[in-house]
């Protein structure tokens, strides 16, 4: 298992970049192939998912341990936990929003097509997974 961890440390960031790229390129494909103009509202889940992925990559894994001494005082764990909490809330709201937009696109014929909604959900999911993968491999140093 040690070899697997070593290999993951080498190619992990690359895999995470590939997943992130795949998520955004699916969205570009949906916008290009859409017959109607995709409104800005549909872009929002992807943008906020990217923001959430960035947010929870800003914390180090060892900062949420219980014997961490920070320069801000002994009770500063709550700042890190609040930051992580906000990141989780943003990511879940994006996921819910993109699924809601997919359902709305599937029900009406006048708005964007089903592929736009599906690509939005895929984009959210892939971007968040990419953020998680990057977090697991960058904090092994």
């Amino acid at each position, binding site marked *: 298992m040690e070899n697997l961890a070593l290999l993951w440390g080498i190619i992990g960031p690359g895999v995470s*970049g590939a997943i992130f790229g795949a998520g955004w390129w699916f969205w570009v494909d949906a916008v290009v*192939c859409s017959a109607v103009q995709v409104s800005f509202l549909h872009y929002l889940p992807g943008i906020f998912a990217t923001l959430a992925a960035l947010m929870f990559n800003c914390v180090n894994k060892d900062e949420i341990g219980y014997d961490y001494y920070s320069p801000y005082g002994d009770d500063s764990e709550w700042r890190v936990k609040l930051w992580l909490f906000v990141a989780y809330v943003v990511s879940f709201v994006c996921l819910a929003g993109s699924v809601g937009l997919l359902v709305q696109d599937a029900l009406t014929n006048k708005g964007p097509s089903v592929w736009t909604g599906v690509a939005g959900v895929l984009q959210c999911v892939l971007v968040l997974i990419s953020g998680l993968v990057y977090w697991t491999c960058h904090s092994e140093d």
Partner: protein
Amino acid sequence: MALSRSMRTCLHSGRLALLAILVSSGIVLQILACALYNNWWPMLTVLMYLILPMPLIFFLGSDTSSIMSKEGDSWVNFTKFLTGASIVGSIAIPSILKHAGVIGWGALTMELSSFVVFGVAILWFLQMNSEDEYSGVF
């Protein structure tokens, strides 16, 4: 099997020549994908091929051994992230062009095979470099 020094150099330059042929056939495939169909949209992929080595140049300089090792500061990780995203981008642009109906199946196959040829050439080049470090430079 022990080769004499001159034979080993000959083999080495033969391999370099094959590598150069691979890279130039990749470039030819890329240009053919545009020229045969008189549709110059697939040249957008060239943009991705240019972006791909840029993180490696900017952040690594000549420190190419730190790609294959686990340690390295966070800029090396970010470089790998950008390289991964560029690789996916160079597959994604021809697929999006095909999905939008801008290019046909033939152009798509030529683009993807050009990507595969470049990938094989880069992997072989990296393997040759790591072999050189073991056997020393003549």
